[in-house]
């Protein structure tokens, strides 16, 4: 049997899946798993645009699956680079000569879409298959996650039929407005070398800011009302920036995550700026509770992020 023929015969089951949408099983959850597997198992390099409001930003992302290493380089504006390995995420800021280090011991065992998590997801979103659409030369299957309430955003994910790679991800609010989107404008699968995921910067002489995160039980702090659908997934203490000790609680509904940060208020150098700020689908709300600063960061509507912040309470243990 010739080599190509073995290859061709092997191709048949793949193509019958990858070739046409009508041949796909009508199972949106299976598509989510397929996207996740492609993101994890494939090596790829591509350029994508992150767009929110009338702003957009171009970045390059490269993953070498065999080394479980991924590099993100923001191409617009001030240069910055992030490299994620099995153990750490390092954020390189060459202009200020700072490298920020997040150890991944806490989040490494945090697979989002194992079957159990998919059940969580399905409680909060109606998951369905959408249209088949060509995006940037890729024939894509849309997977639609429609929120079951107004506490979270909706999503339209477009995955390449052939590889399962997520080519476009759009976040949509309750009124149907697009909040942000990520779109690959160029994507190549395979042919990634170790050099392509190495950080560009040598960091000798740079300041290293290590988050030094450790699991913790926070004494006295709690939420007096949890938001429906969101469950606590992590509770830890960490450092922030140069040396500030901060507590972090993370809640998730299976797709969106909300972090609650609690830190003692330093003797005031400037008044605390409380209020709401936003970046794409992320809202950040800051308020003062019991002489502490509470900062909630979440990929959720402003009202949800505020509800988290307003639920934070302190009772002397």
């Amino acid at each position: 049997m010739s080599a190509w023929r073995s290859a061709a015969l092997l191709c048949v089951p793949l193509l019958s899946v990858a070739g046409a949408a009508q041949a796909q099983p009508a199972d949106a959850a299976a598509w989510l798993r397929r996207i996740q597997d492609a993101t994890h198992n494939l090596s790829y390099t591509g350029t994508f645009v992150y767009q929110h409001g009338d702003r957009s930003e171009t970045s390059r992302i490269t993953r070498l699956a065999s080394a479980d290493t991924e590099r993100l380089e923001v191409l617009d504006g001030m240069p910055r680079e992030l490299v994620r390995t099995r153990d750490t995420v390092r954020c390189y800021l060459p202009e200020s000569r700072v490298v920020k280090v997040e150890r991944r011991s806490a989040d490494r065992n945090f697979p989002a879409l194992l079957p159990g998590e998919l059940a969580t997801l399905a409680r909060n979103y109606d998951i369905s298959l959408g249209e088949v659409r060509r995006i940037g030369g890729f024939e894509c299957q849309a997977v639609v996650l429609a929120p079951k309430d107004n506490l979270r955003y909706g999503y339209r994910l477009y995955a390449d039929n052939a590889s399962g790679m997520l080519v476009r991800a759009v976040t949509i609010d309750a009124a149907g407005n697009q909040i942000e989107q990520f779109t690959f404008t160029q994507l190549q699968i395979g042919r990634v070398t170790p050099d392509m995921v190495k950080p560009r910067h040598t960091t000798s002489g740079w300041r290293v800011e290590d988050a030094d995160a450790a699991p913790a039980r926070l004494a006295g702090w709690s939420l007096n009302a949890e938001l429906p659908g969101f469950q606590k997934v992590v509770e830890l203490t960490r450092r922030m920036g140069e040396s500030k000790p901060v507590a972090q609680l993370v809640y998730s509904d299976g797709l969106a995550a909300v972090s609650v940060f609690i830190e003692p208020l330093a003797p005031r150098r400037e008044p605390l700026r409380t209020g709401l700020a936003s970046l794409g689908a992320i809202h950040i709300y800051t308020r003062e509770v019991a002489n502490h600063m509470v900062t909630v960061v979440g990929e959720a509507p402003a009202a949800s992020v505020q509800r988290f912040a307003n639920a934070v309470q302190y009772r002397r243990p």
Partner: protein
Amino acid sequence: MKERISALMDGELEGRAAEETFDLLRGEGDAAATWRIYHLVSDAMHGQRLLSAGFAERVVAELASEPALLAPGALPGRTPIERFALAAAASIAAVALVGWLAFAPQPPSPAPVAQASAPGPAVVVLPHEANDYLLAHQGFSPRVTLQGMAPYVRTVAERPDESDK
């Protein structure tokens, strides 16, 4: 014959028709050559990973002759917003201004405040440390398992002179 092979690749043949086409392919000859060429085309279109060493080399050679960059202008039927995004991708200079300015006071926008049903909170400039919070948060977002590091672009760095405005 070509139509049937094409239909087979697209998953449009079932049962008897599919089996007959498989038989054609087993006979090598023209059908097999067509099948191989169609795969080259398909793989080149999708930049797909390949299955056997010999097969891979041929397709890599094909891919090498294909331009990988998708020219924004060559993509028809885009909405104005998409066109803007792609045009921006093509011109770093055009978007060099935006970056972290997203954290400057927002222009009138219906997004955050209008959604709050109660009287909205004060919309503030993010503190300098906002990036630290964003970086700390992203690692725990389930989205990373679907999208890799892409969401981390939301953890970028402002220039100190901009953040002080």
